[in-house]
C-alpha cells in the first residue's frame, strides 16, 4: 500500500531477567493509516504498553529489534537526538495515570511550553499564549488561571486534559494513547474519550489506542488488534471483531463482558494469568494453557497469524475447534465437571 503512517514489522522488545533477555513483545507487526484509530487490546502483562513504549523508544533498559517505520523512516535506526525531534513532535503520547504524569514542581503552563520550545523555535510570548490556547482547546475553563497552577491543585480529569494538551501541542501525526481513561472516574472517562476523538478528527492524525476496556474499543476504534502474551492473536475491523470474533482469547474476552440477558448469573472469567516472561513456552499456542478443555491437537506448532478473510487475521488453528466453556450447548458437560471438581476441593478444605 505504501501510504501507511506507521508500519511496524516484527517488533521484538526484550527485557533482562537474571541476565537473560526475554521478549515481552514478540514479533508484533501492525500498520496504522493516517486518520485511523487502531485499538490494541489485551489484559495486564500482555505487552500492549511495552509495544507503545517501544514505538517511541521510551524503554530504558530494553533491547528493541525489528522495524518501526514511521512516515517512511525507520525509527529504530534513529539516534537519541533525532528521536527527540520525533517524540512529542510528530509522535506524541497520552499517559495512563494523570495523577503521576505531571511534574509536581512545575507550573502547568511551563510544562506545556517546554514541549513547544523543543519542537518549534517560537518566542516565549508565543509559547505562552499558545499554551493557554491549548488549555482552552482541551476544555479547561479559566485557562489563564490553570496555567499558573501546579498539578496538585487540579482534579484527575483536569490533569488528564493537561496531559492531552501536552500531547497535541505540536499537532502530532501519530497519537499513542496508553490507557488514557483507566485511572479516571467513569463520568470523566466518556468526556476524555470524546475529547480524544474530537482532537483526532481535527488533527487528522492516526491513533494507537491501548486499552483493556472493550467498551472504549467499540466506541473509538476503526480496527482492533488483540494481544496476548506479547503476540498479536487477532486483528480485524472493529465491527467484524465484535460480530465474528475468532481467536479463543478474543472470544473469551468478549464473553467476559457483562450482558443484559445474563443478569443474576455468574460472570465469565478467563481462568489463570498471562504466563511470566521467563516461564513461557514460546513455540506453542500461548493461550493453550488457559483453555485446557481444548485438545492439544487443535493447536499448531509455532502458530502463525493468518488472514482468514480480507483484513481479518487470526493466530493458531485452535479457533476452529474452540468452544466457550460456559457455552450452554456444547460446553455444559465440561463446566459441570469443573464445578464438581471445585465443589470437591471446597469440601476438602
Amino acid at each position, binding site marked *: 500500500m505504501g501510504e501507511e503512517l506507521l508500519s511496524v514489522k516484527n517488533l521484538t522488545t526484550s527485557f533482562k531477567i537474571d541476565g537473560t533477555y526475554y521478549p515481552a513483545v514478540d514479533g508484533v507487526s501492525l500498520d496504522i493509516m493516517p486518520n485511523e484509530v487502531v485499538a490494541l487490546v489485551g489484559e495486564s502483562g500482555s505487552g500492549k504498553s511495552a509495544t507503545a513504549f517501544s514505538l*517511541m523508544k*521510551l524503554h530504558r533498559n530494553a533491547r528493541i529489534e525489528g522495524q518501526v517505520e514511521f512516515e517512511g523512516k525507520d525509527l529504530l535506526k534513529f539516534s*537519541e*537526538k533525532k528521536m*527527540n*525531534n*520525533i*517524540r*512529542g*513532535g510528530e509522535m*506524541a*503520547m497520552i*499517559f*495512563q*495515570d494523570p495523577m*503521576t*504524569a*505531571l*511534574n*509536581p*514542581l*512545575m507550573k502547568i503552563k511551563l510544562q506545556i511550553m*517546554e*514541549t513547544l520550545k*523543543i*519542537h518549534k523555535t517560537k518566542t516565549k510570548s508565543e509559547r505562552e499564549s499558545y499554551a493557554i490556547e491549548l488549555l482552552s482547546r482541551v476544555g479547561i475553563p479559566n485557562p489563564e488561571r490553570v496555567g499558573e497552577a*501546579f498539578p*496538585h491543585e487540579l482534579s484527575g480529569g483536569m490533569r488528564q486534559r493537561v*496531559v492531552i494538551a*501536552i500531547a497535541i501541542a505540536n499537532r502530532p501525526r501519530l497519537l499513542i494513547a496508553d490507557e488514557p481513561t483507566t485511572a479516571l472516574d467513569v463520568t470523566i472517562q466518556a468526556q476524555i474519550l470524546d475529547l480524544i476523538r474530537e482532537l483526532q478528527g481535527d488533527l487528522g492524525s492516526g491513533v494507537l489506542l491501548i486499552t483493556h476496556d472493550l467498551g472504549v474499543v467499540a466506541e473509538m476504534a476503526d480496527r482492533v488488534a488483540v494481544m496476548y502474551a506479547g503476540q498479536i492473536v487477532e486483528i480485524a475491523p472493529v465491527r467484524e471483531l465484535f460480530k465474528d470474533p475468532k481467536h479463543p482469547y478474543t472470544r473469551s474476552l468478549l464473553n467476559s463482558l457483562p450482558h443484559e440477558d445474563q443478569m443474576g448469573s455468574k460472570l465469565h472469567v478467563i481462568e489463570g494469568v498471562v504466563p511470566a516472561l521467563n516461564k513461557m513456552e514460546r513455540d506453542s499456542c500461548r493461550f493453550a494453557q488457559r483453555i485446557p478443555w481444548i485438545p492439544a491437537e487443535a493447536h499448531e506448532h509455532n502458530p502463525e497469524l493468518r488472514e482468514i478473510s480480507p483484513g481479518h487475521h487470526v493466530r493458531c488453528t485452535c479457533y476452529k475447534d474452540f468452544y466457550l466453556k460456559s457455552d450452554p450447548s456444547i460446553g455444559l458437560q465440561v463446566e459441570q465437571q469443573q464445578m464438581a471438581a471445585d465443589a470437591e476441593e471446597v469440601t476438602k478444605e
Partner: protein
Amino acid sequence: MLKFTIRRLIISFPQIILLSILVFFLGSLMPGDALSGLIDPTVPIEQIERLREQMGLNNPWYIQYRDWIVAMLQGDFGHSFFKQQPVLDVIGDRMLNTVWLSLFSAVLIYLIGIPLGLISGRWNDSPLDSLITGYTYLGFATPTFIFGLVVLLLFGYTLGWFPTGGSVGAGITPGTFEYVISKIQHLVLPSFAIALIGLVGTVQYLRSGIIETKQKDFITLARAKGVSEGKVYTKHIFRNSILPIAAFFGYEITALLGGSLFIETIYGYPGMGRLFLESISIRDFSVANVLILMYGMLAIIGTLLSDIILSIVDPRIRIK
C-alpha cells in the same frame, strides 16, 4: 508564602519559652552553684549565706527564672565566675570562629556532596557509583576524629600545605589583609575534615532521591515530550530529588553551628564545641546554661529554616 512563614514563626515562640524553662530547671538541678568551689573554704558560712542572699540564689525558682530571662532580654547573659568575664564575651569570639568554620564546612559539603550524589544517582550501579557509595559507607562507619587525624597528617604535616592548629597565625594584627588570609588558611583543614564526613548524608539522600525520581511517570512524560537526557536531569529529576536535602538544610546548619568537639580538639581550634565541654567540666554553669539554651534555639530555628526552604522549593507544602 508569607502567611506560611509568619504562622511558622508564631509556632516557634512557645517552643522557645518551653525550652528556656527546661534549661533553667536542668541548670538548677546540677550540683553546686556559682559560689561553690569559688570561695576560700575559710570564709565563714554566714558570709556565704549573705552572698547567696545578695545574688538572689535563695529566691523562689520563678523569681530566679524571671530575673534570668529579664536580664537576658536586656543583653545581660550573666558572668562567668571562672573566667571573670561576661558570658557574652566568653562566647563571642568562639561563636565567630564557629560561624566561619560552619560556613566553610557547609559550602564544602554541598560543593562536593551534590555532584557526587548526582553522578551516583544518575549512573547507579556503575563502577563509579560503587566507588562513591563505598566511600559513603566508610564515612558512616568511621569516627570523625579518624578523618580529622588523617587529613591533619597528610595535608598538615606530610605535605605541609596548611597550618595544623589554632584559628589564626600568632602575632598578626587583626583587621589586616594578612590576618584574613591566615584565618582562611586555618579554616581549610578542619572544615575539610568536617565536610568529608558531613557530605555522606547529602550524597546518600541525593542518590536515592534521583534513583526514585527517575522512574516516575512524569519523567517518562518529559522524555516523551522530546526533552533531551541532560535536560531531563537538570530540569526535572534534580529539583524533585533535592527536596530531602532542602528539608535537611536547616538541621545541617544547626548541627554545624553547634561545633564539632573532635575536630576542634584535634586542630586546636577555639570553637563552640570545646567551649561547651570546658564549661561543663569546670562547672561554669552560667556559660553552660546559655550555651544549652542557644543550642536549643538553634535547633528550633533550624527546623523553621528547613520548613521555609521546603515551602519555597515544593509548592505542595505552601497550601496548608
